[in-house]
């Protein structure tokens, strides 16, 4: 949605136009559902968050000031709902280093060197490997996972991700790098055996 369309559309939405709200839900609900599902790793939880997001948005629309795009605002509500649900259900997975400056020496120690780029696409994307990839995302601490989901899976920009999470762009970049390196490490371990097999062919 362009800025101008966004602002005209917002006026219509704030006037209580039901059709405009239906259009908003129609256009954004897939992305919101996907974001919630990827953060929570559970379809039912994602549906709960999806519904709660639009219920809250409907209620808060009259006071929404339009400082961010509607889509960013919806993502912020959804992410907060998802994180709240996680916190309610379990002891939070606190990652002490999430806001610490990036430590190259620490992050690079024990790094797996497996060149899995050489594997054919069909080997890289089997249903089993997709499942492993999903589980690897779920194993990330929430703060890293949320940034990774918003930036790399949902394609939000660094600035949009920072707006959703209400953190600085530098903080987004650091968390994103950590998340990517951890996932790379997990995939390197996972594909190692396949790479060995491929080499011996």
């Amino acid at each position: 949605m362009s800025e101008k369309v966004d602002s005209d559309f917002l006026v219509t939405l704030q006037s209580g136009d039901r059709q405009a709200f239906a259009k908003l839900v129609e256009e954004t609900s897939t992305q919101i559902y996907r974001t919630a599902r990827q953060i929570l790793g559970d379809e039912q939880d994602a549906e709960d968050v999806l519904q709660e997001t639009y219920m809250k948005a409907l209620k808060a629309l009259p006071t929404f000031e339009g400082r961010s795009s509607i889509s960013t605002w919806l993502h912020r509500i959804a992410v907060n709902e998802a994180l709240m649900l996680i916190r309610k259900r379990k002891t939070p997975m606190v990652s002490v280093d999430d806001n610490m400056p990036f430590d190259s020496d620490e992050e690079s120690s024990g790094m797996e060197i497996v060149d899995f780029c050489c594997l054919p696409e069909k080997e890289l994307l089997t249903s089993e490997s997709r499942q492993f990839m999903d589980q690897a995302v779920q194993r990330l601490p929430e703060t890293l996972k949320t940034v990774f989901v918003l930036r790399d899976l949902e394609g939000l920009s660094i600035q949009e991700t920072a707006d959703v999470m209400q953190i600085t762009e530098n903080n987004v970049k650091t968390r994103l790098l950590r998340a990517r390196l951890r996932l790379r490490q997990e995939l390197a371990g996972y594909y190692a055996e396949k790479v060995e097999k491929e080499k011996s062919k």
Partner: protein
Amino acid sequence: MSKHVHTGKCSAMLGDLSEYIDGSLQAEICAQIEEHMKTCDNCRVVVNTLRKTVELYEHCSDNVELPGEVKERLFAKLELNDYLSKADTSK
């Protein structure tokens, strides 16, 4: 499989890798990384597999759709049933 025994240079470039693979890093630092990779196979593998990791996830993320029944329940909850397109729910 081997473990990366890194040098000071390898460590120094690690913090820039995310922006490097996104193409948002300053040209001068990109050139330093590329120069380093010419002589460091380990770092070349790390960069390539990091890029591949992001590509694989981007590829998989497109496949998650909003199931028709979830959409129906959402519209019902929001009392928007009248605006739910029949064509959309038949997916």
